[in-house]
């Protein structure tokens, strides 16, 4: 028996699910930081909460854009 070509282990399934995991890590950390910092800023200056809400929206929109493109890339292109 040729040991060099012996298969020791095999991974079955769809690699896109690994891609989903990778695409979720970054935006999850990003949204956590955005919301945490918004709460911190609001605790310091509650009267600015209107502007902070809009700034938070922009941050969340950018983070989720990364997630959308990442997930779509793995599911459509792999």
């Amino acid at each position, binding site marked *: 028996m040729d040991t060099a070509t012996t298969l020791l282990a095999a991974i079955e399934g769809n690699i896109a699910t690994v891609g989903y995991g990778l695409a979720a890590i970054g935006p999850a950390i990003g949204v956590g930081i955005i919301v945490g910092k918004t*709460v911190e800023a609001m605790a310091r200056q509650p009267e*600015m909460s209107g502007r902070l809400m809009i700034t938070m*929206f*922009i941050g969340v929109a*950018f983070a989720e*854009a990364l997630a959308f*493109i990442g997930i779509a890339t793995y599911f459509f292109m792999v």
Partner: protein
Amino acid sequence: MNTQAILKRILLWSAILAGLVAVIGGIVGFAVAGTAGLLGAVVGTAVAALFGALTALSILLAIKVSGGDMFSGAFFGIVLGGWLVKFIAFIALIFVIRDADWINPIAAFVSIVAAVVGSLIVDLVVIARSRQPIIEDDRPDESTLGRPAGQR
């Protein structure tokens, strides 16, 4: 212009942009890959526009439910809970439509990217052009004799 007005304007312009991306993507998709390309572009744009708009909708709903008080718990519960549910729904939807043979996956992917990047540009332009005051105060209310609403 207050927060709700800005978010509503973002929703309006994002919908207009999604319509444009769907039309242009549909024409290009039809020219390249026939009916499957057309459907791929339209479905991809619709998915990206719908899931992109849900963030602004969730913030609008959260402001309404929490009464503008971001520390009420309901605010971040709705915004972040909506975010989580949205991504689960997005993955489930992508699972379903990726294996469908009536859409072209490349057309769907390109239109998703175009709609997402376009909606980011729209968000930034609308916010940059809106004149939001640094400090928002409650307006005086007739029923409270000129004091801001909520104070007695």
